[in-house]
């Protein structure tokens, strides 16, 4: 009952024309960027971020959520029709979608993908509505020690998500934490690492860093890479079929596997949709009803992958809303909108601004309906966007990055920062160093520092509070186990060479 009350409140919070327009524009933009070659939701959200500052908070968040969710749907179009995944998380859809399209069933493949993604999106939004409140009530018992440990645990999870690049990810996380400290210290009013520059006194702003790392670096790669060639023969066959829309419901087991993995992995910081889609795809292979071999047009491969892909969004928002910990770069930027409007994500948000929480829940539901509607009526012209030259897009993104960074504060300093981080992002991409942890570090740095100061100030430098409170201790132990896992596994294999750790 409480859920339906929240939903009704959320729906009424969305009623303003600005929020309605933001939902529609965000959903349409998301689908378009999902189809456009080389442009991801990260670039779009980074460039759009400054424009959300002038909007009411819920309208700004709805716009970015629309882009976030829409890109998941749009990515399937190019995966199925031209064997080029728009997003990394759409790769698994390509394995069976493209052979199906080649066999003259493009409309069936697209309909299967859209309906599965729709089910994933709706279920994850419902999950957010059901699970967020109890989780926030649980998190409300957190003190500063637990908050600090939760952020540190999230940082280690982010690092672990990069597997062999764990040290590089931790380095970038450390740099992100450091960048968050630059400027005037709010506690002591001392200037930290400003080098006497007036522009740096207020700190290194998140917007130009995000625009540089995600927008500018991506645009520079797009303009300097050769134009990719693809087999466009199937683009003309884009469309949807009503039979295909109903088909995913014939495979409830594959659907359930995708939904479970997508939502569960979505909650984990930085792990992302790409892992959940691949796990769901391989899990669906076991006990599949349809006997078509996987990789040759099995509908259950598409159902499991797309359900997992789109059920990430709700899970990722749970940690942002209840703990104030972003799961990935996109939710980190969305969290930036909260912070700019003076809204502090975390358990207190449920008490202080319930209309925001309920609004996000309702927005996720409405966005999925809007996207499905948009795809049904416009999939044919949308698919033609795949023809757009990525170099031309790259140039337009460069021009947008300039105005996006500048307009955040009407300052050329912001453009300079974004250019510097654009170069840094480009070099990091070339050197295969992850940059998302840097943004996550910047977003979480302030909270971590104030939590650490609070705990250590109260205990006068005694570290015991971190290890005497059960939740904090549990998170600490988990963190140590995660960091020490490779050595523990090595030790296990040395002692018991025949058993798997």
């Amino acid at each position, binding site marked *: 009952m409480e859920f339906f009350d929240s939903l009704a409140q959320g729906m009424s919070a969305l009623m303003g024309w600005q929020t309605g327009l933001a939902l529609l524009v965000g959903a349409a933009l998301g689908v378009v960027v999902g189809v456009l070659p080389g442009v991801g939701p990260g670039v779009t959200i980074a460039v759009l971020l400054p424009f959300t500052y002038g909007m009411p908070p819920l309208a700004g968040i709805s716009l970015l959520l629309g882009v976030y969710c829409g890109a998941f749907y749009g990515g399937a179009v190019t995966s199925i029709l031209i064997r080029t995944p728009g997003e990394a998380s759409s790769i698994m859809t390509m394995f069976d979608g493209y052979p199906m399209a080649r066999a003259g069933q493009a409309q069936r493949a697209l309909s299967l993908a859209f309906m599965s993604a729709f089910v994933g999106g709706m279920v994850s939004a419902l999950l957010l509505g059901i699970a967020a409140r109890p989780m926030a009530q649980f998190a409300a018992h957190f003190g500063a020690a637990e908050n600090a440990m939760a952020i540190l645990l999230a940082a280690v999870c982010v690092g672990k998500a*990069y597997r062999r*690049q764990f*040290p*590089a990810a*931790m*380095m*970038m*996380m*450390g*740099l992100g*934490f*450091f960048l*968050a*400290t630059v400027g005037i210290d709010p*506690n*002591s009013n*001392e*200037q*930290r*690492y*400003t*080098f006497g520059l007036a522009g740096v006194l207020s700190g290194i702003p998140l917007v130009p860093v995000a625009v540089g790392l995600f927008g*500018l*670096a*991506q645009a*520079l*790669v797009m*303009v*300097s*890479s*050769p134009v990719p060639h693809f087999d466009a023969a199937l683009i003309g066959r884009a469309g949807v079929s009503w039979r295909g829309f109903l088909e995913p419901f014939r495979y409830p087991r594959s659907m359930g596997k995708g939904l479970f993995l997508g939502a569960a992995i979505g909650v984990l910081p930085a792990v992302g949709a790409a892992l959940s889609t691949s796990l769901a795809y391989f899990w669906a292979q076991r006990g599949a009803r349809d006997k078509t071999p996987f990789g040759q047009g099995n509908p259950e491969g598409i159902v499991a992958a797309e359900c997992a892909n789109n059920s990430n969004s709700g899970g990722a928002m749970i940690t942002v809303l209840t703990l104030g910990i972003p799961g990935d770069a996109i939710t980190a930027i969305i969290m930036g909108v909260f912070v700019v409007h003076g809204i502090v994500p975390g358990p207190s948000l449920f008490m202080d601004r319930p209309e925001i929480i309920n609004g996000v829940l309702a927005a996720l539901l409405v966005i999925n309906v809007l996207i499905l509607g948009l795809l049904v009526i416009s999939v044919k012209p949308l698919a033609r966007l795949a023809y757009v030259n990525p*170099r031309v897009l790259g*140039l337009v993104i*460069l*021009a*947008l990055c*300039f*105005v996006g960074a500048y*307009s955040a504060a*009407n300052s*050329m300093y912001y453009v*300079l920062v974004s*250019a510097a981080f*654009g170069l840094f992002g*480009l*070099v990091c*991409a*070339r*050197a*295969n*160093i*992850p*940059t*998302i942890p840097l943004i996550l*570090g910047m977003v979480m740095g302030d909270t*971590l520092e104030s939590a650490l*100061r609070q705990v*250590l*100030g109260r205990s006068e*430098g005694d570290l015991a509070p971190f290890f005497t409170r059960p939740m904090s201790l549990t998170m600490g132990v988990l963190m140590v186990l995660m960091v020490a896992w490779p050595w523990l596994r090595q030790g296990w294999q040395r002692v018991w060479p025949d058993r798997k750790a």
Partner: protein
Amino acid sequence: MKRVLSGQMGWQRWFLLLLALVAAGLLWGTPQLIEPYTGQQPWYESPALFPRLALALALLGGLGECLLRREAVDPSDSEELDSSAARMPLALAMLALFGVYMLAVPTLGYLSSSFLFLLAASRLLAMGWRTALLLALPVSLGLWAVFVLALKVSFGHGWLI
């Protein structure tokens, strides 16, 4: 350890080492880089505590990655942005052009600078004059209409619009 230290010292490892050195330099210079730094507070109340911890993490991470990365890594292995096909001289030239664009906006004005930037960038990418004009004119006009006329973003007053 010898095995770990062996291997190619490619530019990627030098870059990691440079980042680690920057972190080390900032860590070492922290008392000079915080103003006014008294050093009188207990360690747990010091404004230098958190930045030092962050920089130590960056330093350890950078050195750890530098030691572990014994072979050159293919940029196409990147889990974020695949830049394997990008031509770096062209990307850097484009960034330099972006820098000129930054300088031109306050002098010339937003519309004319955007037009010239898009025209020059299109030509740099070997697009024909016609294509370059067809791209530069509508895009710069569209951006100007949206941001200057509609959203009232002020770029100052240049010689032109």
